[in-house]
C-alpha cells in the first residue's frame, strides 16, 4: 500500500513548502479548473422548442387536450426545461461529479453507516420481474415478491430477536412513528392514555419529533458523565404516565448501554415499553439482540446496517420489529399464508392502519435481502466485529489530539472532541471543511449535542486499515495546521469548486426555486 500512503503524504505536505504541482511559471493566472466551473441550472440551459425524450417518433397528441377541453387544461408549462437528450445527460453527469460519495472516498458520517453498497443489489432490484411488478397485482401472481418479503421479515426477526417484523415504514423516522403508535395502541387497548415518552439527551432529533407526532410529551433523561443511561435515573423518572422509553443502543456516543436490561426490567414493571432505536444495529449483529435486551419495539434502518444506497438522502426503509404482545397492532397489510400461498391480510382490526402506500419500499427490501444473503450468519457477525475494530482503531490512533467524549469502550463509532477552539480558535466545522481538501468526507459534527464540538466518526467495516490510516494522518495533519497556521484551516476548503458556502444568507433570504428572468 506504499501507493495509498503516498496519497496521504502528498496531501499532507508542510504548509511552507511550495507545492510542486504548481507550474513553474507562477506568473500566469490559473483559470478555474473546468470541473470547478459553476454549472448552469437545467432551466438556464433551455432553448425554446428544443426537444428531449419523445413519444413515438416525436408524435405529438393534441387530441387528448381537445378531449378534456380548455376549461380543464393548462395552456403551457412555461419555464419547463427544453433540452435535447444529449444536453440533459451532460447536465446531470456533470452534476454527479460535484458529489463526494462512499463509493469514491472515505465517508465516516457518524450514525449513518456509510458502508459499501454492492452494485449487484441494485441489479437485483431492477430485475423486470421485481421492478416491473405492479403493487395491485393479484397475490397469486406476485408470490415471488411476497416470499422475498416474508424471508426478509424472518431474517430481520432472527437478527434482532423480535417476534414479528413489519416492512411497512419508509425510513427510520417513519419506523419510529410507527413504533410509538404501536405503543400508543398497546396502552389504549389496556384502557389508559399514557402521555410521556422518556428520551435520553443523546437521542437523535427524530426521536423527540416522532414522540411529539405520536402525541407524547418527550421527557429528556440525562445520560451520566460516562455517556450512558442509568437504570436508577430511569426509575426516578418512571411513573404511570410513561408509555415508553426510546433509547438508541449503542447510543449516539457509540457506547453500548450497560444497564439496558435493568432499564427494560424497570419499564416492564410499570408495563411501560422499551423502544429501541436500531439505527446503530451495525454494532450488534451476532453480538447482542434488541429482543434479548428486553426491547418491545425496534426500528431497523435498512439503508444503514443492511447497505441499501443512501441516494443523496434516501430512499431508505425502516422496518419495525416487535414482541408478540404488539403484533396485532402492526400496520396493514400483513403478509399471511393460506393453502400454501401468501396473501395480503387487511383484516387486522387492532392495527394502527397505514403510514404510507402499499407494502414498504420494496426496491430497498430487495437490496437488503440480497445483502443479507451475501453476508449470511458468518458475514454479518464478522461485519459488526470489524466495524467495532475500525472505530476503536481510529479512536485509539487519534486519542492524543482528539480524545474520546467517553471513557467507555466504543462500539461501531466513536465520538471525539478537541481543544482546538480554545487553543487556536479553530472550530469543529472548520476542521470538517479542511478534511474536504484531503478528499475525505467529514464525520457527523456537533452531534450528539451533549458533546461540545463533537466529531462523530463511523468508519464501517468495509473500510481498509490503509484508508483509516490516511484519515488519521489527515486529522493529525489538520491538528498541527490548526496550531501552526489556524487561518489555513479556517479558509478551507482550498481545493474544491466552492469554499465557505454562505448558509446564513440562504436562510435569511430563501431562494427555493429558479425564477425565469
Amino acid at each position, binding site marked *: 500500500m506504499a501507493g495509498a500512503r503516498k496519497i496521504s503524504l502528498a496531501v499532507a505536505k508542510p504548509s511552507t513548502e511550495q507545492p510542486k504541482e504548481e507550474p513553474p511559471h507562477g506568473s500566469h493566472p490559473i483559470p478555474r479548473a473546468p470541473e470547478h466551473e*459553476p454549472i448552469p441550472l*437545467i432551466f438556464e440551459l*433551455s432553448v425554446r422548442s428544443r426537444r*428531449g*425524450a*419523445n413519444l413515438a417518433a416525436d408524435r405529438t397528441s393534441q*387530441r*387528448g387536450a381537445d378531449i378534456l377541453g380548455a376549461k380543464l*387544461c393548462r395552456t403551457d*408549462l*412555461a419555464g419547463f*426545461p427544453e433540452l435535447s437528450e444529449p444536453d440533459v445527460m451532460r447536465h446531470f*453527469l456533470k*452534476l*454527479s461529479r*460535484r458529489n463526494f460519495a462512499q*463509493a*469514491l472516498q472515505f465517508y465516516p458520517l457518524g450514525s449513518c453507516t456509510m458502508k459499501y453498497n454492492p452494485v449487484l443489489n441494485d441489479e*437485483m432490484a431492477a*430485475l*423486470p420481474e421485481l*421492478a416491473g411488478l*405492479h*403493487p395491485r397485482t393479484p397475490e397469486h401472481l406476485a408470490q415471488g415478491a411476497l416470499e422475498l418479503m416474508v424471508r426478509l421479515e424472518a431474517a430481520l426477526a*432472527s437478527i434482532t430477536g423480535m417476534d414479528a417484523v413489519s416492512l411497512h415504514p*419508509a*425510513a427510520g423516522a417513519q419506523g*419510529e*412513528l410507527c413504533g410509538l403508535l404501536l405503543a*400508543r395502541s398497546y396502552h389504549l387497548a389496556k384502557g389508559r392514555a399514557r402521555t410521556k415518552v422518556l428520551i435520553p439527551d443523546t437521542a437523535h432529533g427524530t426521536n*423527540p*419529533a416522532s414522540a411529539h*407526532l405520536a*402525541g407524547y410529551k*418527550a421527557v429528556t433523561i440525562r445520560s451520566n458523565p460516562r455517556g450512558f443511561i442509568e437504570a436508577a435515573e430511569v426509575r426516578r423518572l418512571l411513573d404511570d404516565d410513561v408509555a415508553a422509553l426510546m433509547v438508541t443502543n449503542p447510543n449516539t456516543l457509540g457506547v453500548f448501554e*450497560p444497564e439496558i436490561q435493568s432499564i427494560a426490567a424497570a419499564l416492564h414493571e410499570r408495563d411501560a415499553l422499551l423502544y429501541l432505536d436500531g439505527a446503530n444495529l451495525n454494532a450488534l*449483529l451476532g*453480538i447482542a439482540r434488541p429482543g434479548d*435486551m428486553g426491547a418491545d419495539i425496534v426500528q431497523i434502518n435498512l439503508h444503514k446496517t443492511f447497505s441499501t444506497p*443512501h441516494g*443523496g438522502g434516501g*430512499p431508505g426503509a425502516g422496518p419495525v420489529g416487535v414482541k408478540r404482545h404488539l403484533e396485532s397492532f402492526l400496520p396493514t397489510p400483513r403478509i399471511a399464508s393460506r393453502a400454501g400461498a401468501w396473501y395480503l391480510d387487511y383484516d387486522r382490526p387492532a392495527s394502527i*392502519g*397505514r403510514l*404510507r402506500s402499499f407494502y414498504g419500499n420494496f*426496491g430497498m427490501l430487495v437490496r437488503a*435481502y440480497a445483502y443479507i*444473503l451475501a453476508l449470511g450468519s458468518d*458475514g*454479518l457477525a464478522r461485519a459488526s466485529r470489524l466495524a467495532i*475494530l475500525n472505530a476503536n*482503531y481510529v479512536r485509539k490512533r487519534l486519542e492524543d489530539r482528539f480524545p474520546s467524549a467517553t471513557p467507555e*469502550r466504543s462500539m461501531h463509532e466513536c465520538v471525539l472532541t478537541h481543544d482546538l477552539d480554545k487553543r487556536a480558535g479553530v472550530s469543529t466545522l472548520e476542521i470538517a471543511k479542511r478534511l474536504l481538501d484531503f478528499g475525505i*468526507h467529514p464525520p457527523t459534527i456537533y452531534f450528539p449535542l451533549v458533546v461540545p464540538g463533537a466529531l462523530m466518526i463511523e468508519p464501517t467495516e468495509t473500510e481498509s486499515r490503509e484508508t483509516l490510516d490516511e484519515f488519521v494522518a489527515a486529522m493529525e495533519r489538520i491538528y498541527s495546521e490548526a496550531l501552526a497556521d489556524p487561518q489555513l484551516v479556517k479558509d478551507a*476548503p482550498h481545493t474544491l*469548486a466552492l469554499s465557505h458556502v454562505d448558509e446564513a444568507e440562504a436562510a435569511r433570504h*430563501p*431562494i*427555493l*426555486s429558479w425564477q425565469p428572468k
Partner: protein
Amino acid sequence: MRFLPHTEADIAAMLEVVGAASLDDLIAHVPAELRDRAAIRIAPGLGEQQVAASIAALAERNRDAVRMTSFLGAGYYRHYIPAAVRSITSRAEFATSYTPYQAEASQGTLQAIFEFQTLITQLTGLEVANASMYDGASAAAEAVLMAHRLAPARSIVAVSRTLWPDYRAAIRTYLSALRSIEVVELPFDATTGAVDIDALKRLAGPSLLCVVAGYPNMFGVIEPLATIAEIAHGAGALAISATAEALALGLLKSPGELGADIAVGEGQSFGLPVQFGGPGVGFMAARTGSLRQMPGRLVGQTHDRNGTRCFCLTLATREQHIRRERATSNICTNHSLCALAATVYLSLLGRQGLRDLASLNVELAHDAAARLATAGITPRFSGPFFNEFVIRLSNPVACIQAAERNGILAGVPLGPDYRELPDCILISVSELNNPDDFARLADVLAEVA
C-alpha cells in the same frame, strides 16, 4: 468475505494498537447472556453468483404478471422510463452519497434537488416545494398536519372518499394522536364520481380546517378543484389537492391556479418503476406564506465566499435535528434519489414532451373507453377523466379471471375498498397500452359479462 477488507494480519495489527487480545475481547463488555443468545440463525454467506441465482428464482415467480397486458393503476402507474433516467440515478456519486449537509461536497445533489423543487412549483402552480417526501400518502398526511399548524384552532378535516384508500388511511394514522382533530369523509356524487359538493358545503363552517381532494381522484375523475377550493376558502379553510398520477399535472390546470393552498402527490409516474409499490417519491408544494410550517428538507440558493452561486440545505430550523419535538415533521431521510429520477425524467420530456405524453394518455384512455362501449361496457361515472376510468360488470370476479386466462390484468376491483361499488373495476391506461390491448380486453369482458 468479499466486502470485508481485513486480513488476519490487519486484524492482529489493529487489535494490538487498540490493546485488545481478540475481536471478541472488543465486545467483552457486552453482557455475556446477551452475547450467548445473539448467534444469527440464518444461512451462511453466499457468493455473488449464488445470491443472484436465488433472487432470480424468486423473481421468476412473478414472471407471468409482468408479461401480461396490464390495466392496473389506482395510485401507482405504468409508464415508459427512458434509459437515461436509470443511467443517471445509478451514478455512484448520486447513489452512494447521503444527505447533503456539507454543501461543498454535495453540489450535485443540491442543485438537482433545487431543480426538482422548481419543477414541482411549475407543475403545481405554487410558490414553494420541498426536497421530497416519502410518498403521496404520507405527503397528504403531512399536508393536513401542516394545515393544522397553520390553523390550530380548527378541528374538522374533510377527506374526500374519492381519495385513494392508502391516502385516507395514512391521514387517519398520522392524525390518530391528535385528539382535537376529527377526520370526516366527504362522500362522492354517485353520478359524476367527484366530491359531493353539497356535502362539502354542509361541512364548510368555522371549524373546518381543510379539505383534501384527489386531482384526478381514485376513479380517474378530474375533481372540480376550483369549486372545492372556493367553498373551503369561503369557510376560511384550506384546500389541499392530492395527485397520484402526477403526469396529469403536465396537462391539467395546476392546483395552484385553481386555488389549492397545498398540493401534494406521488411522483412515481416520473421515471420510477412500479416495483411493487415503492420507493416512489412524495412531493409537496405550498404558498410562500406557509413556508415556515412546511415539513421536510429545503434546498436554497446562495453563494460562496467568492460570490459563486451555489446551493445548500436551508431553513433547517424547522427540522427535527435542530427543533427536535417542536419540528414541523420527524422526516429525516427522504426520497432524494427518486426526486433526482423525476428531475431527469421531467428534463428529458421537457415543456412539450410532458404535455404530449399526458395528452396521449388521455387519448388512449378515451379510446379504450370507447372500445369497451362498443362491447356494451360503459364508464360508471360521468365526470371527466384523465387516464383511468371505472366500469361496472355483472360478474367482475369472473371477468377478471377470464381476462387473466387471456393474459390480461383487467384492472383493480373496487369492491374491497368501496362497499358501494361491489361490481366495479378501475381501468388504467397509459402509453404502454395499445389499441389492440383494448380490443382484447373488450372481447374477454363482453364474453363473460
